[in-house]
């Protein structure tokens, strides 16, 4: 297995034709979509619904930035502002980021990448989409009925005693959406264990699979704890039991422990699948096997394991014991190690590779830079002294937006562009999409970099008003958000355009090595005509170069 890059010419696209049969035209009608068991169709259903929720959450973000244009709270009343940022957080975290890559790209690709016909439990897969819809419906209902103003964290006793808003409705929505996430994770784990094609050993799996496996472990073990803590909050609000209620002897901090036991690993549920996308994209556009495959694979699992033992760093200023804070601070820094392993290995993959700059690669570069900044500032926040100064300020807002938006959203868009030809059979327009990638990057930096400075200077988060001396940086941030908004709207437009007018892609437009590229685009309902037998490592570009074009199976 050579580590040097093998230059493979991209196939000419003029000769490519759309296959006559594919999962898109195997059946027609709304019913064939709404009752489908096909993982690819469910992925498309998810793609449509999470895109909708993304724009709902994005509209909220727009309102927040508009309000913060001026130091006074003049666009909306302060309690409306509370509701807007709460809904932004709830929608973006639970209804966009958690399902983003796994439920769309992961759902579409995991069975194909391991050489299976479908996920292990197609009906449960469909059920989890319906649960997602029900969760989203409850959350939107909470918003329409008058909103919820707890922030996305549902902190007790604020959520249980002091608010008169729709906490129960929103809590139920997240509870239900949580089960959607549990079932997705469960389905992935069983599929990866039991459905691999002959010869597809664990260390021949694409790294995309490894990272989804690690994220699935977090979904399966973490989400139920969020579920029970929300159930207890709902019981406390409705019938008044006292597990978190200090007047009855309960401890509000216990809620935070339970909540962050899920919600810190949830950060890795969000970012790990994105890291999987980046591994695939960087390898393909460097034409090299991912450097240190085993290390990258195990670093995903290490992130998942360490991720469960760092939750208390969200609570350093909330009166936890100094000694436990010390331990959690140390453990928090440990997470930086597997993350750095990934970043360094990706850089080493680029080294001496034959790099080309297609749109997915541009997004991947954006991911690398932004997630590094996001990760490093995470280490600042993990050290106790710094945390006391910076927590609950805009520094923390900037930090997690660098990881979640700069990292995860870049990875998501990278993946959507990368696999768009596989999903639809057509290419997105390359020039406009490069422009969009660039716009997103510039808009992102402009939005969130000033927030680091604002936070360091002491501007607290979650307030509608701020001292006038912070206005310049806030105006910069709002301007950036506008650019960012255009950057997100562009793909929405040209991707829709490409469904009809995009160039026909052919089976393997990137000359990538994964099994998904060895079948027609878009794939057949049963993915493979016959079960593939895998006899080579992942990212083996020499194998691909020796493979002649006619071996790619196409129907029609």
């Amino acid at each position, binding site marked *: 297995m050579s580590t040097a890059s093998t230059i493979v010419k991209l196939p000419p696209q003029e000769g490519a034709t759309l296959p006559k049969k594919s999962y898109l035209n195997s059946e027609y009608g709304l019913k064939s979509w709404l009752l489908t068991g096909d993982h690819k169709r469910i992925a498309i259903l998810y793609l449509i619904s999470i895109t909708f929720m993304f724009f709902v959450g994005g509209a909220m973000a727009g309102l927040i930035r508009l309000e913060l244009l001026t130091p006074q709270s003049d666009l909306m009343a302060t309690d409306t502002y509370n509701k807007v940022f709460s809904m932004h957080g709830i929608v973006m975290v639970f209804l966009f980021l958690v399902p983003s890559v796994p439920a769309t790209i992961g759902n579409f690709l995991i069975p194909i990448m391991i050489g299976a016909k479908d996920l292990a439990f*197609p009906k449960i897969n469909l059920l989890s989409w319906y649960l997602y819809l029900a969760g989203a419906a409850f959350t939107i209902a909470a918003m329409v009925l008058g909103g919820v103003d707890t922030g996305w964290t549902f902190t007790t006793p604020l959520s249980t005693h002091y608010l008169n808003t729709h906490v129960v409705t929103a809590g139920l929505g997240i509870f239900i959406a949580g089960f959607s996430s549990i079932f997705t994770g469960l389905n992935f784990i069983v599929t990866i264990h039991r459905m691999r094609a002959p010869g597809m050993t664990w260390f021949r799996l694409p790294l995309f699979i490894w990272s989804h496996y690690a994220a699935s472990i977090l979904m399966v073990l973490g989400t139920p704890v969020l579920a029970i803590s929300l159930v207890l909050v709902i019981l*406390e609000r409705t019938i008044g039991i*006292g597990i978190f209620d200090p007047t009855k002897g309960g401890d509000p901090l216990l809620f935070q422990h339970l909540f962050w036991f899920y919600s810190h690993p949830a950060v890795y549920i969000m970012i790990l699948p994105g890291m999987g996308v980046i591994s695939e994209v960087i390898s393909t556009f460097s034409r090299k096997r991912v450097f240190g495959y085993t290390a990258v694979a195990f670093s995903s699992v290490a992130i998942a394991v360490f991720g469960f033992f760092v939750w208390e760093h969200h609570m350093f200023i909330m009166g936890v014991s100094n000694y436990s804070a010390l331990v959690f601070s140390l453990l928090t820094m440990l997470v930086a190690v597997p993350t750095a392993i990934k970043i360094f290995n990706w850089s080493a993959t680029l080294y001496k590779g034959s790099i080309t700059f297609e749109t997915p690669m541009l997004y991947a570069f954006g991911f690398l830079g932004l997630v590094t900044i996001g990760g490093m500032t995470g280490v600042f926040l993990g050290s106790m002294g710094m945390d006391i100064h910076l927590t609950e300020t805009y520094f923390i807002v900037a930090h997690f937006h660098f990881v979640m938006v700069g990292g995860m959203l870049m990875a998501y868009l990278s993946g959507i562009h990368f696999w768009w030809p596989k999903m639809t059979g057509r290419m997105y327009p390359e020039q406009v999409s490069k422009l969009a990638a660039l716009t997103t990057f510039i808009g992102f930096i402009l939005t969130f970099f000033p927030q680091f400075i604002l936070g360091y200077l002491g501007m607290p988060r979650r307030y509608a008003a701020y001292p006038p001396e912070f206005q310049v940086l806030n105006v910069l941030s709002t301007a950036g958000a506008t650019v960012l908004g255009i950057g997100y709207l562009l793909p929405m437009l040209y991707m829709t355009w490409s469904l009809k007018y995009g160039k026909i892609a052919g089976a393997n437009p990137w000359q990538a090595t994964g099994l998904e590229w060895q079948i027609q685009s878009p794939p057949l309902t049963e993915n493979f005509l016959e079960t593939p037998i895998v006899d080579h490592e992942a990212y083996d570009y020499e194998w691909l170069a020796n493979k002649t074009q006619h071996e790619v199976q196409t129907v029609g």
Partner: protein
Amino acid sequence: MDSQAIATSPEHTPSVEHAHPPYLRHHFETVEQQREASSFGMWLFLLTEIMFFGGMFAAYLIYRNWYYPAFVAGSHQLSIVLGTINTAVLIGSSFTMAMAVYSAETRNRKALITYLLLTITLGLVFLGIKSDEYHEKWEKHHVPGLNFSVHDFVNVNPAYPDDKPLPLDMAEKTQVYFSLYFAMTGMHALHMIIGISILIILVIKAYGGSYTDGHVSTIENFGLYWHFVDIVWIFLFPLLYLISRHQ
């Protein structure tokens, strides 16, 4: 081009296996693979259930250490007789469930239906006794939030005359004990109700001839769920009913 399409189209791929059992879903290669996948999925689901109840067990652990006297006083208000009967009923239902799985494996439809109905009955008996206990809690003003009074805890418990009455601030903490009692047994009862609903569907399907044709994994997996709910109770019973009962 067209002839090629016909040659490789999915309808014309030569079938390797000859006789698929009707319950083998198309995306699995073998019955064995399907069975392994579904049982693995069920075990993973039970793992999520452990984490779900685990949140409450963690809360129990902390508060029992903080408010031990309140937990003792609260526990001494529960009926150990009803708790023991319920434990026996639930273990009995696990036995009948295991027998139902055995009957499915030996393809004995009549026995399968009988044992499933027995399991439903025992489950309902458990819920009946549980609701009677809840009713008693309500009458004794032991329901935090809705109907609670510290009266029983600042005075001597006639059933346990050796117990010292609690000081008022500790007596207030019995609300945490009863909050946990209702949350834990309530979530357990909810799992029983879901289980009984599924059992009813299983009985109807078993009448139609399902599960005795060699496809036992549904019954097996439901059996795992039922035993899990049973095991949760096996932990709840000593933790809630048997605190300091050695007098």
